[in-house]
């Protein structure tokens, strides 16, 4: 297969990755047979792994590695999660290939998972730390949506701040049935614990306010 990332992007990414602090592992699940974009997602992650010593890739099959898939609640393919240097899952998940504009949520997630954290106000962090029930944030995106990576990044930032929170990107075209189930006709669409719906890229404040009100 031809390279997914061109020379120019590879060069930029090498530079961006040089700022990573600790190691990060991408754990990818694909499956045999019909799987839209499984091959391409694997290709992309393999290329990204090549660009930094700190980035590692583990590959699993959803149907064969059932135990592994269970650890991260993986039910569809392609899906991958990021693990921190201790091999822990912090709730950062991608369903579908983060190509197009979504490369801009994927790369910051890698950098932040390596320990280069985004600055958040202390009182905000304290509020997030207080969330004590399981929270799942789904962010439906399309690859041609410039506003979407911002929303995905916020879900991931919240996930990294609290072990009870999981943030997942869902590429709407790949997971057509799921998108239909949640009536996605505009992106980004944010769904919290499968019941609260927000449309459009919202301030991170709004994400938190909705979570606190659960």
């Amino acid at each position, binding site marked *: 297969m031809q390279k*997914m*990332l*061109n020379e120019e*992007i590879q060069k*930029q*990414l090498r530079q*961006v990755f040089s700022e990573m602090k600790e190691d990060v592992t991408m754990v990818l699940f694909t499956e045999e047979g019909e799987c*839209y*974009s499984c091959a*391409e997602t694997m290709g*992309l992650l393999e290329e990204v792994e090549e660009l930094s010593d700190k980035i590692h890739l583990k590959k699993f099959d959803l149907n064969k590695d059932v135990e592994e898939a269970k650890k991260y609640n993986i039910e569809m393919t392609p899906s991958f999660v990021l693990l921190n240097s201790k091999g822990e899952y912090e709730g950062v998940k991608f369903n579908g*290939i983060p*190509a*197009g*504009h979504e*490369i*801009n949520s994927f*790369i*910051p997630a890698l*950098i932040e998972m390596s320990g280069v954290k985004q600055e958040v106000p202390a009182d905000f962090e304290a509020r997030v730390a207080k969330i004590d029930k399981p929270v799942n944030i789904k962010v439906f995106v*399309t*690859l*041609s*949506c*410039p*506003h*979407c*990576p*911002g929303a995905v990044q916020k879900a991931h930032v919240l996930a990294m701040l609290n072990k009870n929170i999981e943030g997942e990107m869902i590429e*709407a*075209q790949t997971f*057509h049935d799921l*998108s239909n189930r949640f*009536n*996605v*006709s*505009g*992106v980004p*669409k944010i769904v919290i614990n499968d019941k609260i719906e927000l*449309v459009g*890229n919202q*301030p991170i*404040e709004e994400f938190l306010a909705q979570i606190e009100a659960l």
Partner: protein
Amino acid sequence: MSFNFNFNLNETKKAIKLTNEDVIDLLVIGGGPAGLNAALYAKRKGLTTGIIAKRIGGQLLNTSSVDNYLGISQVSGEELSEKYLSHLKELDVGILEEVEVENIHKSDRLFEVLLKDGTVFTSKTLLIATGSSPRKLQVRGEEEYSNRGVAYCAICDAPLFKGKNVIIAGGGNSAVEAAIDVAKFASHVTLVHRSELRADQILIDHMNHQANITIHLQTQILEIIGDDKMTGVKVLDKQTLLERVIDADGIFIEIGNLPSNHLIKNLVSLNERGEVIVDEKNMTSLPGLFAAGDVTQMPYKQIVIAVADGAKAALAANEYMNQNF
């Protein structure tokens, strides 16, 4: 299957953050073409300046392809916005993004700008470059089916309508562009407009080449109908005066924009369309308060025009500073 990558270094490398420690010479509200260029010009004139914006790029981020910007034959709106932003970063212009200005007021000689989170910025002159936002059809069903069929961002949402029937409401450039963009995914696109097309001929020609686009002119949308999702629109054929239903799974509303004037509508004069009235040097009816771009009465809302308007406003603010401070 092939995927492209719109990698954006700016997402990982942030601009200098604008702080509110000092009184700023020219504070710019809005990060679209007008606001960005105004900050560039102000900085080069030696003014202290900075930008506060909900989203850097403004409407550029909703534009798939810009083909009418001199010197660049084809560029995506986002790429153009990135080029603007890199230029500002080279000059160390402070930027505060993802924040919303809630209120503005002038006390004595200074402007106070209050953000939603409570932060206050103070400046000697102020530029409003808040642009415009999509106009709604204002028909029954529009709110009800919003995000259950009704959409406003063609490049974002077109892929969600793969294999479906989609209506585009409107007859200007953005409607015709949306029809072309959506036709790449949808099985069929119907463009519905209450009068005649007023888009650029080059775009109309392009649309006419697309086999899966039908055009209904002199047709007014009366209502968006459906059950739990939208199923179609009820229209009035203005020639036969007959009502009928056009079935569709979705509708993109591209009928122009409304000026985002709410921050200053009680401070300055507006025209009957709600646009801020400025003089030839972009000053509003309130001294020291300037406006530029789509939010003003300037005709023909275009990127190149907004950019130029921003430059003009910054130069005028500089002149005003020299005379008044």
